[in-house]
């Protein structure tokens, strides 16, 4: 009776049952050789095999030929070819395992947003080793979806399609809003941004139709807007902050019509220049980013000079690994009294009044949010308070405040948001519930 000795096997498969067997004939040795080859193949080593066996005295030798990855050929239409190849190099020299290689390629597909990854395994120079012939195709488009409940606009699903290009990006956004059985918003944005160096180019067009209320006159109407813009600007970085400053030429066409009354219609046009500045700590890996956005528009319409400014600042402070204090501020000003240039007072910056449609020429809001990660990477709970001053439709400065609580639930790339807000001068029974779902594909 011959004892079984396996030679040439380095990969981790359990062959105890084969090694424990005894062999008395060539036929039995052959059966064990086939069994070991099958075991290799079942474990994913589909190109490795037992190439011969030998019965010598009281030992039965099984000679395993392991098939190594000797060469990798990559065909890619992606600018990432060099990086993908760098990653694939890790496979070189390893014993080919179909499962391992497949798992590795799945990782690469996710990592580089690949649309397609194909592999052919061929013999390398007629040896037992293999050559991997891999073809990848980059995903052309990235999608993100959002469904939010916004004050005034109601349920607003939106979709953003991003097409990455070489040192440029093209973005298309579509959004609609439904509230009280009415379409409150239809919006489409097309943008192209090129960033070949520190100087960039940005152009786009916004087209929207929005249901609007002017509380002072008790009227509701629809505003249709077409707004093309083109600008040039610079990108800089300071510390962990990425900073951009762009100067745009902007022209806007407005058509205002009383709701469901086609006869009462008016049109406005304006043109001017707009400065947009953005600073965000994108180079940080903090959970919440510090952001500053500011814009200043100066131009003229048919009958007046226009000046409009907006600024938003968010400065999250991480107190512990799961507790944040997030102060933020928002400011808006326009010198125009026309309704199309004013903003609603109560919106996502100042939650609480779901049914107030009053608008303002100028408002300045400060908000403080306390956020705690209740369950790691799953549930975040927040309480917030916001307070501000605004110039009412009767040209008087007024104060208002709101507070509320909410929760964010994270699951993979989906974020679900739910909360409730109150105004401080209203009863507890008068509340506003907000919800939202965001997802990225």
């Amino acid at each position: 009776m011959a004892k079984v000795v396996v030679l040439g096997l380095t990969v981790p498969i359990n062959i105890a049952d084969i090694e424990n067997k005894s062999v008395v004939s060539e036929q039995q040795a052959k059966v064990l050789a086939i069994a070991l080859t099958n075991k290799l193949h079942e474990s994913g080593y589909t190109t490795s095999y037992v190439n011969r066996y030998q019965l010598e005295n009281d030992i039965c030798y099984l000679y395993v030929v392991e098939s190594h990855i000797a060469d990798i050929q990559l065909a890619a239409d992606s600018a990432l070819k060099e990086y993908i190849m760098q990653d694939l190099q890790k496979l070189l020299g390893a014993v080919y395992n179909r499962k391992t290689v497949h798992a590795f390629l799945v990782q690469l597909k996710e990592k580089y947003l690949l649309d397609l990854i194909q592999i052919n395994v061929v013999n390398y120079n007629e040896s037992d080793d293999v050559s991997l012939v891999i073809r990848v195709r980059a995903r052309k488009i990235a999608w993100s979806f959002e469904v939010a409940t916004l004050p005034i606009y109601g349920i607003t699903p939106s979709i953003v399609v991003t097409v990455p290009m070489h040192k440029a990006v093209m973005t298309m956004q579509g959004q609609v809003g439904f509230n009280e059985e009415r379409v409150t918003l239809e919006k489409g944005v097309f943008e192209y941004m090129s960033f070949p160096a520190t100087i960039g180019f940005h152009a786009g067009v916004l087209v929207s139709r929005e249901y609007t209320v002017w509380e002072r006159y008790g009227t509701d109407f629809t505003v249709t807007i077409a707004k093309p813009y083109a600008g040039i600007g610079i990108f800089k970085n300071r510390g962990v902050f990425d900073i951009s400053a762009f100067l745009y030429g902007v022209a806007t066409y407005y058509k205002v019509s009383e709701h469901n009354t086609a006869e009462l219609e008016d049109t406005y046009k304006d043109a001017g220049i707009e400065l947009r500045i953005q600073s965000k700590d994108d180079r940080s890996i903090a959970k919440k980013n510090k952001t500053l956005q500011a814009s200043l528009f100066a131009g003229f319409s048919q009958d007046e000079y226009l000046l409009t400014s907006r600024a938003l600042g968010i400065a999250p402070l991480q107190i512990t690994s799961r507790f944040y204090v997030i102060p933020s501020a928002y400011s808006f000003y326009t010198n125009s009294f026309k309704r199309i240039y004013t903003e609603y007072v109560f919106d996502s910056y100042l939650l609480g009044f779901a049914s107030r449609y009053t608008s303002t020429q100028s408002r300045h809001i400060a908000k403080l949010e306390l956020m705690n990660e209740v369950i790691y990477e799953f549930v975040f709970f927040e309480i917030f308070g916001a307070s501000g001053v605004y110039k009412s439709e009767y040209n008087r400065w007024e104060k208002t405040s709101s507070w509320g609580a909410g929760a964010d639930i994270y699951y993979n790339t989906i974020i679900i948001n739910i909360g409730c807000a109150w105004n401080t001068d209203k009863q507890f029974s008068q509340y506003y519930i907000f919800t939202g779902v965001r997802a990225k594909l």
Partner: protein
Amino acid sequence: MKRVIYVICLLFSIQSSADTIDTIINNFAVESIDATIVQVIAETGKPTIRYEGRYRAYKQNMRIDYSKPFPQIVIVKEGNLQWYYPESKELWVMHTMNAPVTHPFAQFFAFKDRIVIKSKENTYYGLFKRAYKYILIDTTTRTRIEVIVDKHKGYPVKKITFTDDNVEIMREQYEDYAYINNVWFPTTVEVVARTRNGITRNITRYYDVHLNMKIQPDIFILQLPKGVRAKQM
């Protein structure tokens, strides 16, 4: 000439602080640790995984016996890492750094010979707790390290590592310090790192911590069943 002056100024600024790396943080007199740990690991675009197990370490040697989400044994002995999956009898090995593993912050000291202090200033952390902020430079990798140290207790509370072009690559937080056997020990450690796949977040919570207890040295030797072959990580 301008460059020479710049280099001299830089050297002066680097050496201007009176502190040394050893005196920045003290209180690491931990020879051994035996604790129950819960780790939460989250990676961009992947489900968050929660691990639970027993953590034991003695000087440079460490062993973690994970019970959840499935059994795994991790051993670091003399700079060699072994990661064993008992259910599939799979063993992965890798050579790692030979650094102390008995205090979560102590690995930092493996690099201390190549780190210089650039500046020190007063700051606050948490809810108005006073601290020192040190800016350190790793002379080998040119990374900049910001370390926040509690002013009174001398323990580190935060360490942020930046590349030389200001990209934050790692953020570590040391929290919930407990005073055990005359040693301040952080029972919550969070490490957020930028990887090629996105952002990875690792939170470790230590429970039932025993410091400087006797640990049998043979636990750092992995007992393997027959037929297990090692794979390089």
